[in-house]
């Protein structure tokens, strides 16, 4: 009982312990453990998100199989310049994110990490700006499904239903990504050195990479169909 009592006293000082405390791990292994746990956690979440977007893509697949011709007509109406530009922006931001994540693992690369995070945010914001311009042009062109829709083939409305939905869900994800990265930058600013080996950088960057991948798939769905001929 005395040994137990001892332990309790010790832990009373550090009131909230991390769950991995006292798993019999050496200090730095515990840290690696925490990091690995966080990475694993975010990957499970990404698997979950794969199904979220997967269901959306399934919807597209099924509708397009049924209305191939109308979908081609509708896809021609999207603005390929903005679409391609945005794809390039996001791919570049993905590069910055990847570099940031790898740089954060190494001593002495804090500045690089910070810069890359900054660039990631800026590219993300640029994407959103382009998307905003594109949206307003779409609205001008009456591509919002409903009364007064620009195209007459009925299933073109389905395509644009999907277009608005998919792009806005993607934009919401991207905004969350931007918020996460801004938070990291803010934390580093408040508490220099925070970014070094922080599992949070890895988590945010993995999420960013995932949002990137979603756009990579959306691009041919929304912009490339029906261009030939």
């Amino acid at each position, binding site marked *: 009982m005395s040994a137990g009592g001892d332990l309790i006293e010790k832990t009373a000082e550090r009131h909230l312990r991390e769950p991995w405390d006292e798993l019999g791990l050496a200090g730095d292994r515990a840290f690696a453990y925490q990091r690995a746990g966080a990475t694993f956690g975010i990957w499970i979440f990404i698997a979950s998100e794969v199904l979220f977007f997967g269901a959306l893509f399934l919807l597209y697949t099924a509708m397009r*199989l*049924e209305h191939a*011709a109308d979908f081609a007509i509708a896809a021609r109406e999207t603005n390929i310049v903005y679409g391609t530009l945005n794809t390039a922006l996001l791919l570049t931001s993905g590069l910055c994110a990847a570099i940031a994540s790898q740089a954060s693992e190494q001593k002495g690369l804090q500045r690089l990490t910070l810069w890359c995070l900054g660039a990631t945010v800026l590219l993300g914001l640029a994407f959103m700006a382009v998307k905003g311009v594109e949206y307003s042009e779409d609205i001008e062109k009456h591509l919002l499904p409903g009364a007064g829709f620009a195209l007459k083939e009925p299933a073109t409305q389905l395509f644009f239903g999907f277009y608005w939905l998919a792009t806005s869900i993607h934009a919401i994800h991207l905004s969350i990504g931007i918020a996460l990265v801004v938070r990291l930058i803010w934390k580093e600013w408040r508490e220099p050195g925070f970014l070094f080996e922080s599992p949070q950088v890895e988590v945010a960057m993995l999420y960013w990479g995932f949002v990137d991948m979603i756009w990579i798939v959306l691009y041919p769905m929304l912009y490339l169909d029906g261009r030939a001929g």
Partner: protein
Amino acid sequence: MLDALIPAFLRPESASVQAAKVDAIFIGLLLISSAIVLLVVGLVATFAIRYRRGSSAKRGEMPTIVSREFEVGWTAATLFIFVFIFWWAASVEIGAFSPPKDAIEIHVVGKQWMWKTQGPSGTREINELHVPVGAPVRLLLTSQDVIHSFYVPAFRLKRDALPYQQTETWFQATKTGTYHLLCTEYCGTDHSRMVGRIIVMEPQDYAQWLTRQPERDGLAELGERLFSERGCSGCHNAGSKVHAPSLAGIWGQSVPLEGGRTATVDEAYVRDSILQPERDVVAGYEPIMPSYEGKLSDGEIQALTAYIRHGTDRFDLIGSLNLAPAQNICAPGQTPPESAPNQSLRSPAMVPGAPASGDTPP
């Protein structure tokens, strides 16, 4: 035979070819399941009593190999039983899949909250369907609004009616009589009142019935005009903003009134409703309907009544839904005209990628 195992009051009426087959599977499954339940519950009870705490039954270590053998054994056994049941059920399903070529073709349209049918030679009915006994009947279903489901318990028949799509099923009645027609896909407020009757008749009665079907007469046409001219449609039509009951298919139904009474819709009731609407207020509605006392002549009221009786809907379902007209209609007992099976109404094949007719899938 087998179904004699179940007392009559536990057995739903069985009035179609399919019903007998379904009941056979049902009873088969019931026997298997009872055996399983008896086995499981029996074992649990036996063990619970024999090995209750403190009983003197002998306990000891179980031989270690047993466990594995048992596991594999009962896994294999259940798998075998399951595959057998599946095979049995599936073979009945596949066998009953496509309707005979000479089936009578009936179009069914579901609509909140009524069934409209159109049979051979254009006979139209609401919440009712007359069919001859012993002849296969093929139903082509669709819906004007939400999903409904056409259910005839006595035939063990059910199929959803989907908006802008066509589904199909078929049956062959084996017994004359009147059977429930129910809607079993939840479709809004009066889902539970979307019920009707299937009337199975002897073929000669059916042929007679067919000839007796009145065309919609002039009176109802007049009523229809009045219905919109006098503003009834403003409240009573489906799209209306005013909360008023739909009059579709209410003829002969009993309606619940405010205060717990019910009334049957007949000439007198409709007349009362028009002249003294505040007297019998339908349960769940405000008494906002104006009285038409003095504003409508007796003749006009009769016309309106005729209209309500014969259906308030323009009943041009084939036209409005762009369905191809039925091609192989024939009176029972006759041979069908040499008909090319209507390609666009072909049933979905059992095999994906089977040679498709009409337009090729993308």
